[in-house]
């Protein structure tokens, strides 16, 4: 049993080297404009600051106006701890909700929101009418070819593509072996 423990501890040590250890869960520590801020003129940019670097890709910020209209402009950009997106000139006065969803550095998606209030109506028009959820469609289509190209590249470089190939191969081989072995055991038992 002691030998076994030694082996396990060694295995742990090896694994810590091999698998990238999880980093922490990102937490929003600040935003510009601040949560609950009262603004006379709309910001031209929303910046969210997290306690540690945010992963590239998958980050998304939306700005939703009082009547459900959408006001963010352009793509969400990630710069180390900060995630930001441009904002169109705002329209009606009222509460604007900044929703976000980022990929935390430990690999979990983290989503939440902050809000600010526009006290004087602006002159702008919404980037999208309400409701906002339809935005997933075109954005997704734009993303898909990029991902496909990256996947092809990854497959060429070995990486996960090769791993998948190995796993599929071993699944087939082991599957056949399992069926044969279990059938034989059953025969032996019934004999």
């Amino acid at each position, binding site marked *: 049993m002691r030998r076994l423990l030694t*082996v396990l501890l060694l295995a742990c040590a090896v694994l810590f080297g091999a*698998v990238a250890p*999880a980093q922490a869960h990102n*937490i929003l520590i600040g935003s510009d404009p601040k949560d609950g801020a009262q603004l006379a003129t709309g910001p031209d940019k929303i910046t969210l600051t997290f306690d540690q670097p945010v992963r590239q890709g998958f980050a998304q910020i939306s700005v*939703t106006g009082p009547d459900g209209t959408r006001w963010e402009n352009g793509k969400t950009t990630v710069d180390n701890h900060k995630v930001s997106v441009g904002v169109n000139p705002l329209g009606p006065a009222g509460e604007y909700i900044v929703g976000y969803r980022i990929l935390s550095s430990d*690999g979990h998606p983290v989503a939440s*929101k902050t809000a600010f209030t526009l006290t004087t109506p602006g002159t702008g028009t919404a980037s999208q009418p309400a409701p906002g959820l339809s935005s997933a469609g075109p954005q997704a289509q734009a993303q898909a070819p990029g991902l496909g190209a990256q996947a092809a590249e990854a*497959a060429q470089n070995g*990486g996960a593509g090769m791993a998948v190939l190995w796993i599929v191969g071993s699944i087939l081989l*082991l599957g056949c072996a399992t069926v044969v072995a279990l059938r034989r055991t059953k025969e032996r038992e019934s004999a």
Partner: protein
Amino acid sequence: MTVTVERAPQADTVRRLLAGGFVSAAVLAVLVASAFTAQEAVPGIAIPGPLVEYGLPVLRVLLDLAAVAVVGLSLLPKLLGFDDPERTEPVMRRARPMAVAFAWAWAVLALVVIVFQTAELNPGLIPTPGMIVEYVNSVGAGQGMLFSAACALSYAGIGLLAVRFGEKVPAELRIVIAFFGLLPIPVTGHAVSSVWHDPIMISMELHVMGAAAWTGGLVVITLLVARDRELLARVLPGFSKMATLALIVVGLSGVVNGLATMLLTPGVELPGALLTGEYGPLLVAKAACVALLVPLAAHIRFRLLSRIAERQATTVIAWATAEITVMGVAYGVAVALTTASLS
């Protein structure tokens, strides 16, 4: 086949009750806990549909249970010993194919979990192979799951050799591979960024391995050994020692990890955060499960063990079933805890 295992008429019912109780307790607990931690809607942000939101935790807990079964079945030859093959071999002959089947389930579930995790990151889209490759390449949780699946597959391969050649395939090898496959699972959970990160991860690994050995061992002994009084009398004292150690390790590491994770997260105030938010109450629920296990385990250890040693009839199966059901609840809560929001 020699008839050493006495088959009581209600044996199958007991077995079904036990396995059913374990699995349904775990699944129910994870569903309730996931509903508790459910992502509130954020305007303008697409969040995953209910299939992913509830399907992913259920798959994760089933994966844990399959891994627990594999670990328990791997420990069985060690617990039974190798001195009396006449008596232990019939049990092992049933255990080995089961281990292979559960290793299969583990591997397949790990791969399906990767697909679901990809879907979770890309709400509203059906994951394509390209997206899955991208996910595994960029996110550690994906690599961890892939590694776990690979371990489960190699376990299935070695388990097949064991089905064919019996105990000539070393039991230690199977135990090490099974534990190895468990190691990446906590890597996919929470972690904190501080100098305490590595100690916390190591204690997390101990937590996962201790829980798997304890639960798996108890499930397997209750299902496969408990009806043979002679065999049970030989196995249980050894397992009882291991279980006591596991109880201490699991309880301590769990409480320390949970509290340390909360302490090291900015904006979380102890002890108030234990009752508010998501992480705190789930941590309390899990600690309550372990606290509930103590009297159940103590009853088996201090009241029943001496009578079992004298080969008397006992109610050990009923008590073990209760213990296993509580363990199922703890596993369910554990899965929700890994993704619960801290703040």
